[in-house]
Structures are given as structure tokens and as C-alpha cells.
């Protein structure tokens, strides 16, 4: 593999083992209400997995149908690499007054925060690949959490009719419009995480109510 991770000559840091140990036991039988979901969004310098870096991770926990504001996670990462083109989207400047941490510190806090929760994002693949690439840079393997994508969940709530383009990809803006969610703080990681979390609750509720979806069914969505 490209990042040349090698088990033999490198012991993994303690924070990783602590995180990893959470996955040792086979998962307990859980349902939608007792499972913790971490809904997250990342702001990055761009869309290149190798070159670009994470600027900010915003996340919020959802448990038992509640979004807990107190559990919000928001962390800004010190940057060496900068891509001027994307600054106008997320407005995080290199020398902003925000308190920042190193990439490794961010990862430590993040792993400690998510534990074994199910990760939820809009277009999960992008955010998690960014995070995994950061892990790999530190010589760590990929995240072990289960994941859900609000895009697929939303799609499952739509009619399976050939009128709607089955390949259509719904943007977070479209979801927000559909569910009438306030778009302030759009393009800040935390703001987007909150929008995603509300859309997640509403879409999952629809699926449970109209199609008797269980957590297992959700995890099967592609």
C-alpha cells in the first residue's frame, strides 16, 4: 500500500489502541434508539485526497432521536498547505484567529470523540477518505466505524419510479430545501454537520415509518 504501513516495526500509539479496543468485542445487538451516531462534516483545502488537507472537522452526536448541542465537536487544524481557490467557500483563512491544533492532536481528539459510534455524513466517502488519509499519514490504519450516508438514506425515501433519475445525486442544499432546514452556517463544518443531522433524523424517520427500516436495513443502503 502506498502509505507503507508496517505492523512489525512500528508500535501503534496508545490512543489508537484505546480506540481499537472498542471494536474488539463483537457488537452488541443494537437498534436505532440505543445507537450513538456521530454526524460529521469536514472542510478541506480541496478535493484531492493526497494533496489537500482537512481544515476543520465539525460533528454532533445523535442519540435516541436527540441532537445534543453539548456534544458538538469542532476543531480547526493548523495548515502548512493552502489552496487559495477553496478559501472563498469555507472562509477559514490560514492565519485566522481561531484556535488550531496539529493534525495529530485533531486525530487524537476525534478518535476519542467518535469511539465506536456509527459515522454519518453527506457523501460519507469524501469525508471519511480525507480522515483516513490523515490517519495513514500518521502511520495508522483506516477508521473502523460503521458508516451511513445521508445521500443514500434520502434517496431511499424517494419513489422508486423511473421518472426520477435513479442515478441522481442529491446535494446537501437540496436536502435542506426539501426538509426546509435553515441554511445559515452553510459551509462551516459544524453548520453543515447540524444540517446533515436534522436531515438524517427526518429521512430515517420517514424510512422507519413508511418502510419499517431497521438499523440493519440502513447499513445496507448503497
Amino acid at each position, binding site marked *: 500500500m502506498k502509505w507503507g504501513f508496517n505492523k512489525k516495526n512500528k508500535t501503534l500509539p496508545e490512543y489508537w489502541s484505546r480506540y481499537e479496543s472498542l471494536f474488539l468485542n463483537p457488537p452488541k445487538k443494537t437498534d436505532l434508539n440505543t445507537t450513538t451516531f456521530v454526524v460529521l462534516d469536514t472542510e478541506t483545502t480541496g478535493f484531492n485526497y493526497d494533496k489537500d488537507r482537512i481544515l476543520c472537522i*465539525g460533528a*454532533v452526536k445523535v442519540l435516541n*432521536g*436527540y*441532537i*445534543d*448541542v*453539548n456534544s*458538538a*465537536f*469542532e*476543531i*480547526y487544524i493548523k495548515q502548512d498547505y493552502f489552496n487559495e481557490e477553496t478559501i472563498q467557500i469555507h472562509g477559514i483563512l490560514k492565519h485566522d484567529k*481561531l*484556535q488550531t491544533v496539529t493534525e495529530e492532536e485533531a486525530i487524537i481528539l476525534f478518535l476519542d470523540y467518535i469511539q465506536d459510534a456509527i459515522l454519518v455524513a453527506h457523501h460519507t466517502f469524501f469525508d471519511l477518505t480525507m480522515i483516513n488519509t490523515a490517519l495513514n499519514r500518521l502511520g495508522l490504519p483506516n477508521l473502523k466505524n460503521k458508516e451511513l450516508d445521508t445521500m443514500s438514506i434520502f434517496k431511499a425515501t*424517494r*419513489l422508486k*419510479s*423511473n*421518472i*426520477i433519475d435513479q442515478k441522481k445525486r442529491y446535494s446537501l442544499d437540496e436536502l435542506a*430545501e*426539501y426538509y*426546509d432546514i435553515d441554511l*445559515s*452556517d452553510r459551509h*462551516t463544518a*459544524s*453548520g453543515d*454537520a*447540524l444540517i446533515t*443531522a*436534522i436531515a438524517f*433524523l*427526518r429521512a430515517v*424517520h420517514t424510512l422507519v*415509518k*413508511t*418502510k*419499517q427500516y431497521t438499523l440493519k436495513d440502513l447499513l445496507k443502503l448503497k
Partner: protein
Amino acid sequence: MKNTIAERVADFIKNFPPFDLLDKAQLLDISKEVKIKYLDKENVIYNVNDPLHDQFYMIYKGAVKLKKYINEKLETIDQFDEGDVFGLRPLFAKENYAITSITEEETILYCIPIDMFHQFIDHNKEVRKYLIESFASNTENPFSNEFQKKLLEDDVKLDFSKDMFEMQPVRLIKNVVTTKQTSSIKDAAKLMSKNNVGSIIIEDKECPIGIITDKDLRLHVATGNYSIDDEVSKIMIHPVMCYKKNITIAQAQITMMKHKINQIVVTKDGTPNSKILGVFSEHDIIVMKGTNPSVLMKAIKRSNSTKDLKRIREKIMMLLEGYVDQNIPLTHINNIIFELNDATIKRVIERCIEKMGQAPPVKFAWMSIGSQGRKEQLLHTDQDNAIIFENTDDDHLEEVRTYFLTLAKKVNKRLKTIGFEYCPGEMMAKNPKYCLSLDEWENQFSAWTRETGDEELLLCSIFFDFDITYGDPSLTNQLSDHVLEITKNNLIFQSKLGASSLRSPSPLGFFRQFLVEQDGEHKDHFDLKKRAIMPISDAGRLLAIHYQTKNINNTAERFEKLAELMPEDEELYLSCAYASKALLKFRTKHGLRHHDSGRFIALAELSKEEKMKLKRCFKAVSKVQELIKLKFNLKNFI
């Protein structure tokens, strides 16, 4: 750690009492502890006698109704919407909840922990005062309850009508029309006409110093005593009768009777020396109570906000409920509800065009399609609509389309807020596929009828039932002519349409048993829409196309017309007309009973009489399906 989400929450709650009394740091402290909860409609937040929660609630989105047992019946005593705080009981009392609170629509709540909040009550007198007052007016208060009981026991018999209407606080009209005392009577009258109101407040530094009503114009100006160029101060009535917020309807009515006025101005401290918060008129009482179509119609035409229209729509639903309960003939109900819905949509379009700040570049028409186009939409159902606009040259086509798409987006969004859900198939005017010029629509329809697959059939069955809601009827008329022309001798299309109308199986199985759904959420339920309403409206549409009846979309009316055209089958067609009305009524009744679309019906719930009635309707459905099989040579079907 920075917490943007808490800041977001703080931003919202700071706009509403009691949080507007707190400083920024306090707001943020509270916001950090808030939990956000999403609830579907008709979801209980707490019930009477439930143990107290360790949190109270603020509505971020949606609406909640409070219910209470009055004479052993659960009645709605109050409704709350965005920014309102409720569930304060745990702050003041130790016993269980005294009322039930249920979401009225999809709702997002901010749950605020009691523990966290206690310190603010203890240290902030203003907050405490506000909370105690609002707790008292929420009728969660045992005192007011006792008080009412006592009133009832007295020798005077008071009619506390359902919902204790008179005890509700008045709902203020907040966009008050005002002018300065130096302006001329003429300008004031112009302002009144423009805003469609019967009175105008004369203000100075935001305080009310006088009021002029239609009556004053009649008394003083039309009689020639004053000229229209005189200053308004000459004829205004002053001082103005002012009241504090939260005055009840009963108080307002008494005041109006006592002073022979029909307007009350509400100011910040209840005197004419403070800021105007809103007005309340006799007319508004009627509207609040309003279950009278003509009052509702007037209210729709006067409404100036989506929120108003939403409230009016709730009234329309109440009206509908009442009509169905009283067994008023469906045709009558149908017409009234259709007209009210229609007026609502028209008003929304009108307001959106104003908001565009630019008149439409060419003539256009807003079309309702599907059930609404057939005038068969009684309950809250999806919005299906489309736009047709005048042909333009290619250079301007996209520019023109952009205008109408922007307009449609506004209209669709507001209709949703009012209660017309988005169409899950995205058949809405804001979809660029359904916002077309006359030529484009004609080509679209031609294409659908020329090469007809399943998708095209479905589209035809929705779009062919178009009806103009707003705009230029010549466009929709031309489109109707086009539909007649392309379907006239197109037997291939007709037989495909016929085949698709037979696809939903006959509603009655062997031994005249009902066919129920085999699995899923609606197991053992009967799908009224798929198995009865759709087959009969499909049949109606097909025959209407075949016999070229123009401009009739309503299924019952289509069959009545067919009966007239073909006396030999009169009996069958009339029975279909009857069935289509009966089925719709059936669906409406069930929908109202269960607060849903009324589509799925539990067989076990039906009385014997209802089952008999349904079976009679199904007989008509299977007979007309037989006729279609023969007529369009579809013997191989089913």
C-alpha cells in the same frame, strides 16, 4: 472548544422571550445545553398526568397544540408555533403535567434543561416575571381552571364553545398600515386601498396618536365636510384605544362593543405612549373563529403573509371536517373546498409575482395537474403543478424560462409551508422539465402519445388532467385542443391507456371478498386509491379522450357527460359518477379520522353499511373495466 451549533441555537432563541432578557454569555451557556429533537406530526410530547420532564421546550420549527380534558373530552386549548415556549410546569410545580401536548405538524424542538435554567429564574427578576405570567396564561394553571368551573356553576349559563375560543389570546396583525399626521387624507386613503385594509393608524415616533377607518372617510370626507387634501389629523379619532399584548378575544370583543369601535391597537405597555405592536379588528375575530367560506375567502384575498394563509388553511380543514360530519353532499363540499384551495394558490402566485419585482415577460398560465386538476383534492395532498408560457423566439426562451422557474420555486416553497406537500415525483412547476412554452408542451405531449411506454402512460395520466389555476386561459385552451387532436384517432395510444387503466386489479376477489394488502405497513388494509379511485379516474380519462369531451377533468363530471352523450350506457356511466364521488368522500372521511391521506383503510374498522356501500362502488368499477376491455379490444388483459 468553539461551538458554532450552540451559537446558532443562541441566535434563534435570543429573538423570543424570555431569552431576549438574557445577555450573550448567558444565552450561549444555555444554548450549549440544548438538545434538538425532531418529531413527526401527531406525536405526543407529554400526556396529562405524565411525570414531569427535566426539560421544557421551545419550538424551532413546526407547531404544537396543547390539549386538556374538558367535560371528559380532550379538547385543544392552545396552539403554539415557532419561537413559543411551553412545558413550563416543572419550573413551578411538582405534580405531573396537567395538559397534553401534541405536535400538530412535523416539528423540531429545542429541549432546555430545567436545572440549567433555574439559576436564571433565581437571579433574573424579569425572566421570572415573564415565565410566571406566561405559565399562568397557558392554562396550565389550576387557578384559572377553578375559576372557569365556578363561572359555569353560576346561574348564568355561559356557552364555552369548543376550544374555549373566547379565552384564547388575540392573534395580532403585525404589519400595521400607518401614516404620519401631516399626510393628506387622499394619501392615507390610497395607502388603505393599496393594502386592502379598512383602517389606518396615524403614528408619531412609533406611538399611535390616531386612527382613521372607512367609516370616518364616509362621515367626514364623502359628505364634503373635509377635503381630500386636508391633513389626516383633521379627521382622525384620538386618543386611540390601546391594549397590552395577550388580551383575550373575550376582552377584545367587550371593549369593541363598549366603545363602539371595531379596531384595537396593541402597544408595548398598553398605553398610546409606547410602541405599536399590532392591531386587531372585529374582522380578525371572525377570521379566527371563521368556519364560514365567504369569510375565509375574504381572508385569503386580504392575506399578506404565508403564515396567514397557513392559518386560513387550517380553518379550511376544520370547515371540511364539519361538512363531512354533517353529511353535506360531496359535490357541494368539493366545490367550496376547491374554490378555497384555488384562491389560496392564486393568492400565493399573486404575491410571488409582486415579490419578483418584475412583471412576467410573456403571458403564462399556472396549471394544476393530477387530482387537483381533476378537482378531486380534498385533503392535504401533494402539490402537482406545471407552468405553460407563451412561445418566444429562441434567443429569449431560456431567459423567459429562468423567470418562470424562479417564480415557481417561490410558489412551490410557499405552498409547502401552507400545507401542500412537495410532489415526491417532482412534478412541480419548479422542475425545468415542467416549466415549458406552449410549443414545448405540445411537442412533449405529442412525444408521449407517439412512443408510449410505461413512464409516458403515467405522465399522461397526470398531465392530461391539467386545469388552469392562474394566468391566461388561451394557453391552456390551445393545449387542450392539441391533446384532442393528437389523441383523436390514435387508437394505439388509446388502447395502451386502456390497458394501463386495467392494470390495478378489480377490487373484489372471488366470493366478493375484499382484496387487502398482503404485507408491509398496510398489511390487512385496503388500498382505496390504487384499487378503486385510480381505476375509475383512469377509466374516466380514457373515455373522455376517446369521446373527445373537452375541458372536463373531474371524474364524476366526465361520467355524467358520457351518460349524456351515450344514453344506451347511461346507467353504467351514472353509477360510475356516483361511485367516484362516494369513493372520494370515503377517502376524505377516513383521512380526517386518522389524520392521513385516507388512502389505506383497515377492513376491520368498516361497518357493515360502509362495506356494502364500497362493494356497490366496486361493482361500477369492474363494470366499466369490462366495457373498456371490449371497447379497446383488450380481452387478453386480466
